[in-house]
């Protein structure tokens, strides 16, 4: 459905994207995460045909990304919601539907369905009067007027309130369930974890880690054991009176803690296992950049 191979994009002397490769299947949600300036937006804009690759290739639904025909099968949502503020949502969306050669009746149905699902009831007032969340919903609806097979969303929930964010995130998941291929970037790793089937962590224009969340955790995460003792241990933190916590990375460490507690006249009262979150992996992979 979507294949990126050796994608490189340079601006003058700056190499924003360096040999990125990944594939996304039908109905899959693929997330791009990474710090600011990592090359996510450049990658997404190249997927959308807005930028020409310096080298490498992007194939969407069998079309090269530089092929104008590719645009018919793709919906793009930029990071901001650049709308013509003097237009109403209805006229704005109809205009874009026209450009995609969507018959008026079909377009009206799609527009109504999208706006209903996104809970945008105000449809005949100029967009300039809208809040940021409402504008975002109009922009999302625009990305759907041509009923695309592939959706490329750049920070779809950026700057939105929690309620609107949830609507957008749930809607993204629904789109994938309807068979759409979704590639999107996000800063909020919680949403990536909750929506994405697979993730690529981008750092300095390169993919530092890629795969399912489980794979990435396995490759780049770690398991920590938090042991709690009733006596003070070297390196332990007192979390409550008479209760000390020590983090160790292996069962050998746990055994060592048990021996030290016994030597001190106490014992281990609790052991808990903690797996790395995507945020931990992200910080580990990117060296702490955000």
């Amino acid at each position, binding site marked *: 459905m979507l294949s990126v191979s050796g994608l490189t994009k340079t601006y003058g002397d700056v190499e924003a994207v360096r040999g990125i490769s990944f594939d996304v299947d039908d109905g899959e949600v693929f997330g791009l995460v990474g710090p600011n300036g990592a090359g996510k937006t450049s990658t997404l804009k190249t997927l*959308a045909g807005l930028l020409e690759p310096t080298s490498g290739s992007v194939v969407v639904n069998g079309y090269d990304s530089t092929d104008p025909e590719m645009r018919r099968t793709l919906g*793009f949502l*930029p990071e901001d919601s650049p709308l013509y503020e003097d237009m109403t949502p209805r006229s704005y969306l109809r205009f874009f539907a026209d450009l*995609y050669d969507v018959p008026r009746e079909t377009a009206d149905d799609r527009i109504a369905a999208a706006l209903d699902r996104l809970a945008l009831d105000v449809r005949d007032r100029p967009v300039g009067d809208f809040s940021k969340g409402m504008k975002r919903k109009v922009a999302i609806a625009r990305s759907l007027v041509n009923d695309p097979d592939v959706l490329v969303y750049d920070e779809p929930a950026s700057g939105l309130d929690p309620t609107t964010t949830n609507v957008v995130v749930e809607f993204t998941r629904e789109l994938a369930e309807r068979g759409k291929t979704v590639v999107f970037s996000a800063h909020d790793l919680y949403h990536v974890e909750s929506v994405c089937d697979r993730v690529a962590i981008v750092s300095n224009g390169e993919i530092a880690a890629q795969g399912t969340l489980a794979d990435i955790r396995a490759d780049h995460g770690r398991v920590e054991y938090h042991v709690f003792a009733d006596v003070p241990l070297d390196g332990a933190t007192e979390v409550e009176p008479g209760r000390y916590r020590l983090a160790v990375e292996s069962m050998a460490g746990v055994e060592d803690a048990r021996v030290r507690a016994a030597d001190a006249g106490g014992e281990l009262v609790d052991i808990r296992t903690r797996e790395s979150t995507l945020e931990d992996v992200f910080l580990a992979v990117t060296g702490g950049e955000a």
Partner: protein
Amino acid sequence: MTPRRTLRVARWEATRGVSGVDRRTAVLLAVALLVLAALAPLLVAFAPTPGAGVYRVAVADGDPYRAPVDATPQLRAVDPGANAVASGRADVAIGAGGVRIADTEKGRAALATFRDAVTAYNDRLMASEGDQAAAFPVVVNLTYVERSAVRVGGTAGSGDGSSGASGTTTGATSAGTTSAGTTSATTTSGTTTSATTTSATSETATSATSETAAPDGERPGSGGDGPATPSDITPPFPLRSLLYAFVFLLPLNVVIQAYGSSVIDERIDRRGEPLLVSPASRGDIVVGKALPYFLGAVAVTAVVAAAVGAGVRSVVALLPLAGLFLGVTFLGALFARSYKELTFVTVTVSVGLMAYAFVPAVFTEVHPIAAISPLSVVVRDIRGDPFSLGAFLLATAPVALAAAVCYGLGLGVYREEDLFTQKRLPAKALDALAAPLSSAWRVGLWTAAFVPFVLIAELFAVAALFVVPEAFAIPVVLALVALVEEAAKSLHVYAGFANARFPDTDRVALAVGVAAGVGFFVGEKLLLLTRLVDLPNVAVGGAAFGGVELGVGSLALLVAPLALHVAAATTSALGARRGRRWYALAFCCAVGLHLAYDYAVVSVLG
């Protein structure tokens, strides 16, 4: 490009443009346009005459001089009575005792105007005679020659007509010069044709034939020796041309303001980004957005043309100008970083293009230099004067091609990477120049495409300097020509290297330099358009365009300009690949080389 999508974008742009204006503003705009359309014919029909009725002439109703006075707006007939001049009621009095004038500056000016009025009246009478050979038995061609010293007196030639008989001006006109206490007379011109042939073809041809005697009046110290030098022939004040220029150009300025705002609106907050992702091509978007404004300009031009009595030819002649207004505004709006910068750009566009179209057009009735302006076609069309296809092409082709080049350059940067960047204006201009360059072949092609701008710049330089003494004007024109042509051959090459469009090697620099030189040489043949209206025969025009003619007829002379262009362009290209300072240095060398060549050409041409 897809016509359906282009039209869809155009319809959307028109709808947005209309809906973006509130009702009150729309009404005010409509009223302003209607008032302009209504005023245009009135202004043209009842054009105010400077100084109407300023000179009072005491002349009786039945006097033969009454008719010339009535026919001249500056003169106003008053009751002759007694002592009309002495009492201050008249500046000039005509009676049985002759002509009397007030001994004042105004009195003398009134007499001069009165004399001109009588001469013009007589000419009109003679022109209406059936037998023109009898009416104008002698026709004199006057040719202006440079007068190198101050004239202090001494004339030869008749024609003052004081005898009241039919008089003719001979061709011999002398100008006395004084130098170190000695006086010499120099014959400056004079060609007398046969008595039966009318051959007044020159721009300055005239005849002085008296039916009613043009009086000298009783001026203290005048001695009755009325001047008869060519400098006495004054051109008509081109008020109508000026008015036409005004009413046609004014609406275009309103149109480009709206268009420029619309283009920059696409760039603010990246509003145009979704359009770039849609199936509409860049061409669809750019043409679709420009179309409503172009059609609006055409509609307004057509309305104004109808109002002032101009025909379809006038409207067609102005289409390229409207296109250039829009094209330059389009580029400016792509380069500007804010509405504030856009205002600067549109004002610059307005002033520059208005000057190009307006200033020469004012001289439509006076000088062939006016032929460079599309408005000259309009003026001639309204006056019913014939104009050749060549003149039409000279007035419109460079402007049309320049408009096309503007849109070509703009299309190159109408893409995500360039549209939304906030570079400084010169840097964006260089991006636009570099964008279409991907090979030496394209460098040559675009160099040829820049020639219309060269032509416009050179024509404008000629138009601006043709009234300046040639001793000053010709060197300045030569320098401007060298600067403009070398810039046209090298700026985009520099932009190409600066934007890493070519490999940074001397070999590539040589290749693109040669391509630019050859491209310019080919495109330069467009300058031959100037021959269609005899522009090279204007002295400064010869300096600017004379060199082009060398390329015609002789192989050696054909190769000479080609060699110049290739050598100069290659010099600049070799500098351009090494960076800005080297480019500046190489550019100066190229200009120097060009200047030396042009100086040699002008010297050869004499």
